[in-house]
């Protein structure tokens, strides 16, 4: 993982933890499947917050794949060319 990718992952974790009102800082990856609070409305909130924060845009059919902080960080990093 490059330094940029690592920084992105930490920021993604922080953003997701804040949206889900989880105790911060989130020291480990967060997966939607394992987090009851990550419901359908929170998912949309998280995706749009990520888009606004990183200046990226995800296709509608990519939304379901943004299902963990690791997956999100990878997709954001790919968008940003990190």
């Amino acid at each position, binding site marked *: 993982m490059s330094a940029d990718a690592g920084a992105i992952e930490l920021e993604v974790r922080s953003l997701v933890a804040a949206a889900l009102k989880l105790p911060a800082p989130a020291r480990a990856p967060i997966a939607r499947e394992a987090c*009851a609070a990550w*419901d*359908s*409305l929170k998912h*949309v909130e998280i995706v*749009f917050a990520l888009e606004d924060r990183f200046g990226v845009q995800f*296709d*509608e*059919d990519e939304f379901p794949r943004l299902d963990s902080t690791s997956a999100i960080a990878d997709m954001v990093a790919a968008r940003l060319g990190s």
Partner: protein
Amino acid sequence: MDHDIALRGHGYALRPVRPEDAALIVALRNDGGPYINRGAQDEREQRAWISRYLEREGDYYFVAERMRDARPDGLAAIYDVDAQARRAEWGRFVVRHGANAAVETALLVYRCAFEVLALESLVCRTLSANAQVVAFHDSCGLARAPAEVMVMHDGVTRPAVEHRLDRAGWPAVEAKLAPFAQRLAARMQDG
């Protein structure tokens, strides 16, 4: 109930369930859950259920279709309408795996309840085990009953969470959900 209520939102529309939706309903319900009611297990059984539903008053069952291409992405219903008390329950809420239909389907259900059916109050019950749907109703801003209720599920009594939305609370919920539905719809049009 053989109703003709149809609502168009930003990216999704609700239309009445028809007998030919039987296979769709079975497929969508088998894709998720758990649900309070087990439901029909095959298309023939589901068609029979829809025939009985069409004769039942106070029951409005909908398919949520993506407006861009009419893909049926979800189901929801308002039922057990108490015409005197102006209250009802909503449920049979199912969304196709991977579809972004939940937010606008809920929004349209509430619009139907408060602006079309002129209800005063709507409740929904979700099995406590269905934690992400319970969380969804919490996130939408619905009031959660302080104690769990017990419901029958596959012949077994199980705990469920009851949420309520009253007419007075609808504008706040609409204000919360509508911007997300609009932004999602714009993304769907891009696709």
